[in-house]
């Protein structure tokens, strides 16, 4: 039996489309012509869109210049030209953003306002993925978009790690977080000799940064969250320590029958505002440390990062001297007399000039 074998010719596979700045038909840099060829559309559509975007807030100019930097130009044979120096591309993008920033702000339109954060997010995603994987912003638009998405995903994961680390450190788990950071560091070190795990660097640094920030800020949620208003009537009711994790803490001693001599009191606040209101006949000695924020007591005040205020005046033996030792994480501490309580408003913490609102420390010896 004779069998005839028919050979059927398969149609040639279509060439993979690549986004390049074309040489033929370009008006400026070949971006719109390249987009037209890539999407099989008339380039005039992209040109009109670009012009409209340039006129509406100037976003089109930014997009066009970014495309000039990121999309490779085709060579004489129609292939993407050889890759450019990545540092030159990064420098170009940075310069471009710096130049276009005030220009885009000048537009003041919603479109620009939406595109700027989006452009920064995409750029951040590309840079993060570049750092994590070593894959730079080369290739076609699809590759860059994929890397930007992966980088943004890494950023989201790092954000969750930062929140978790900060919360764990604030809730008293700083030791656990520290051990986790050390373990990650050891894994990275071991990996350097076996198989590098560079992807672990960013989450580990993020965890250390969030926990360290919480620790440096002295944030401790052990004291709870909310508003605390203490008005002791006798020295028996007076506590040694008034502690709050987050919120507003008020200690009003105007109705407290305080004995002569030194009366120690500690204020420990993680995040928020603390007020100590004292009677007119009480001398106040203050030793306060505010990690981030301000401290104001009578005629003294200071604000900023790692603020210390030490005011330790003497008092006669027959006079009560309140020794306030305060540790505030992020927020403010204000110590004053009754008149500043009159102006106290829970929704507004603007007390005006220090020396007129908080009273004077007149009960102390001068």
């Amino acid at each position: 039996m004779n069998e005839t074998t028919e050979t059927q010719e398969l149609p040639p596979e279509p060439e993979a489309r690549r986004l390049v700045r074309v040489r033929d038909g370009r008006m400026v840099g070949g971006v719109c012509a390249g987009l037209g060829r890539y999407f099989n559309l008339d380039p005039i559509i992209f040109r009109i869109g670009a012009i409209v975007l340039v006129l509406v807030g100037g976003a089109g100019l930014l997009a066009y210049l970014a495309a000039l930097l990121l999309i490779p130009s085709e060579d004489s044979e129609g292939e993407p030209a050889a890759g450019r120096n990545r540092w030159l591309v990064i420098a170009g993008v940075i310069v471009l953003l710096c130049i276009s920033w005030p220009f885009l702000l000048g537009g003041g339109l919603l479109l620009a306002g939406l595109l700027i954060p989006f452009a920064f997010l995409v750029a951040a995603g590309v840079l993060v993925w570049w750092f994590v994987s070593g894959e730079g912003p080369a290739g076609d638009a699809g590759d860059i978009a994929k890397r930007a998405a992966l980088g943004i995903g890494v950023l989201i994961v790092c954000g969750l790690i930062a929140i978790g680390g900060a919360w764990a450190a604030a809730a008293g788990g700083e030791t656990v977080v520290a051990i986790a950071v050390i373990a990650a560091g050891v894994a990275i070190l071991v990996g350097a000799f076996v198989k590098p795990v560079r992807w672990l660097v960013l989450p580990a640094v993020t965890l250390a940064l969030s926990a360290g920030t919480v620790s440096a800020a002295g944030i401790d949620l052990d004291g709870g969250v909310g508003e605390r208003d203490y008005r002791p009537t006798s020295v028996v009711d007076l506590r040694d320590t008034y502690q709050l994790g987050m919120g507003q803490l008020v200690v009003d001693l105007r109705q407290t029958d305080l004995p002569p001599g030194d009366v120690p009191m500690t204020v420990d606040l993680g995040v928020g505002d603390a007020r100590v209101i004292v009677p007119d006949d009480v001398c106040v000695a203050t030793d306060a440390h505010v990690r981030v924020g301000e401290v104001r007591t009578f005629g003294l005040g200071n604000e900023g990062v790692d603020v210390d205020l030490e005011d330790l005046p003497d008092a006669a033996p027959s006079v009560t001297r309140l020794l306030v030792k305060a540790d505030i994480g992020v927020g403010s501490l204000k110590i004053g007399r009754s008149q500043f309580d009159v102006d106290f408003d829970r929704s507004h913490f603007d007390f005006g000039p220090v020396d007129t609102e908080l009273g004077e420390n007149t009960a102390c010896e001068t």
Partner: protein
Amino acid sequence: MRPRPDVASVVAGACVVALGVVLLLDAAGTLDLRFKVFGPAVLAAMGAILLASGLTRPR
């Protein structure tokens, strides 16, 4: 011949371990961590990591 270690990972690992030790000392009460110390320490660590990563390529 044993492959050469990834220098960037060595630097990064050492920096991360150092940051973890600082956190552990603070948690133990041996060290009072403040922004004046922690801020420059973190910046130095990140700078060293970025420098090492930029000067070497991943294997």
